[in-house]
């Protein structure tokens, strides 16, 4: 019989760390990753020798880049695996690190995501199947089409949809780890570089680099290592899936709704109980689609509620308080791990100027090209 993570022993996030997301630089990926890991270890108050297993998420760095990075923490011989799952690479690494600890194989594990902008395009191998528009519809154009469809279906304007970027840039301006840390007006966002359809550059996630790390521990690990249990955040659920046949227009949203529902059921929480949501807002329309998929509001109702401030920090449910992919950034491998880091910071009450007061439950959501979807619910 199959089991859920919540059927196994409890798992907690006990340490978080980042190298700020940033535009492409000469900084090596080793520097990026080590900063995030060392910060996470210090946050947990555990030595590197306590980490029994490591999951390294990267999509753009090439083969087997983990050991050349981790050896500088002390090459102690612990198991190491690399995970590539497109935009969901970091979320996938987090899930499998949690599974290892929940299963009792390890008491303490590391999930780290690190990536840099590739110097040359890394093409996906061809499937050999022809497509009428294979070279014309890149991700931002896929989401430009979904923007057009949503606007027509629910009678909202491009200006309405761009308000998501106003909110997320505002949140990112309060986050020292965000790639974009500048408050933007609606006029600035709409007047920026036109990309595809009604999407402008400030409504699209920036390409960048960075790292995020989390330390995961069992209750036994927390006791044995003397970790502060008051700052440990429970991983209440983990759900994952891939695209099903039958929804060719918007597979990501249908898949997200299903996996979010599974994750909330496993955690025994309703959408109205979510205080924090970090989701895959690589393009503004995605926040509308995925927020509605969680059930925090009915389809087509996101924009009116956004205008009321319901999804602001301090509102009913803070969505993308980190700045989301639009402002915090989306360096690929780190992104899903970084979402968990933001939610842990919020649930601990340690988010400073962007703290959502009283946050007790958070949901992290990523999709990846394929499509795959990973959702985690964390609780104080």
């Amino acid at each position, binding site marked *: 019989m199959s089991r859920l993570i919540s059927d196994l022993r409890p798992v907690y996030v006990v340490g978080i760390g980042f190298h700020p997301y940033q535009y492409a630089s000469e900084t090596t990926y080793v520097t990026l990753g080590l900063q995030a890991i060392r910060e996470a270890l210090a946050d947990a108050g555990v030595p590197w020798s306590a980490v029994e297993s490591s999951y390294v998420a990267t999509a753009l760095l090439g083969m087997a880049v983990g050991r050349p990075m981790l050896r500088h923490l002390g090459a102690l011989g612990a198991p190491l695996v690399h995970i590539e799952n497109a935009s969901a690479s970091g979320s996938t690494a987090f899930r499998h690190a949690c599974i290892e600890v929940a299963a009792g194989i390890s008491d303490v594990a590391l999930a780290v995501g690190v990536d840099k902008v590739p110097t040359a395009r890394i093409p996906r191998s061809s499937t050999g199947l022809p497509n009428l528009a294979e070279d*014309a519809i890149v991700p931002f154009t896929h989401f430009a*089409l979904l923007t*057009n469809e949503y606007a027509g279906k629910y009678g909202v304007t491009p200006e309405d949809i761009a308000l998501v970027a106003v909110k997320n840039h505002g949140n990112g301006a309060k986050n020292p780890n965000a790639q974009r840390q500048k408050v933007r007006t609606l006029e600035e966002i709409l007047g920026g570089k036109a990309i*595809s*359809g009604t999407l402008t550059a400030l409504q699209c996630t920036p390409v960048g680099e960075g790292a995020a790390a989390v330390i995961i521990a069992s209750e036994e690990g927390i006791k044995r290592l003397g970790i502060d249990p008051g700052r440990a955040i429970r991983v209440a659920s983990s759900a994952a899936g891939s695209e099903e*046949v039958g929804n060719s227009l918007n597979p990501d949203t249908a898949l997200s709704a299903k996996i979010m529902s599974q994750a909330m059921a496993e955690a025994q929480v309703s959408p109205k109980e979510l205080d924090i949501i970090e989701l895959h807002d690589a393009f503004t329309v995605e926040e509308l689609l995925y927020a509605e998929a969680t059930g925090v509001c009915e389809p087509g109702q996101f924009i009116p509620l956004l205008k009321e401030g319901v999804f602001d920090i301090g509102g009913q449910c803070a969505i993308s308080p980190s700045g989301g992919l639009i402002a915090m950034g989306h360096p690929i491998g780190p992104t899903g791990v970084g979402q968990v880091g933001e939610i842990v910071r919020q649930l601990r009450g340690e988010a400073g100027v962007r703290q959502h007061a009283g946050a007790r439950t958070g949901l992290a959501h990523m999709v990846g090209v394929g499509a795959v979807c990973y959702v985690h619910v964390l609780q104080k």
Partner: protein
Amino acid sequence: MQHYGCENCGSQDLVEASLSGRGRLVAFARVHMHMAPDRPAPFTVGSVVTDDGAVVRALIDPGSEDALRPDAVMTTRLVTETRDGRGAHDLRFGLASKTEA
């Protein structure tokens, strides 16, 4: 045509079928920026649900761009292929003529 296997059931016993080449426009987008050098922007793409129920994404015939609207009847047409190694023609969608609609 693919012969790898059926997305519904995995069967390799596949039968070729022709689509009608007629459908309705679900969404469209004018692409302002595009990296591929042999597909220079601007151009317009669209999502079309064919009368057979298939969802197809394709380039839109430039002659139709200014009058696009959701649910418009669209039909296929062959245009001259401008990219190397792709044959003589490319298949695009455009607004149906009054007789086609």
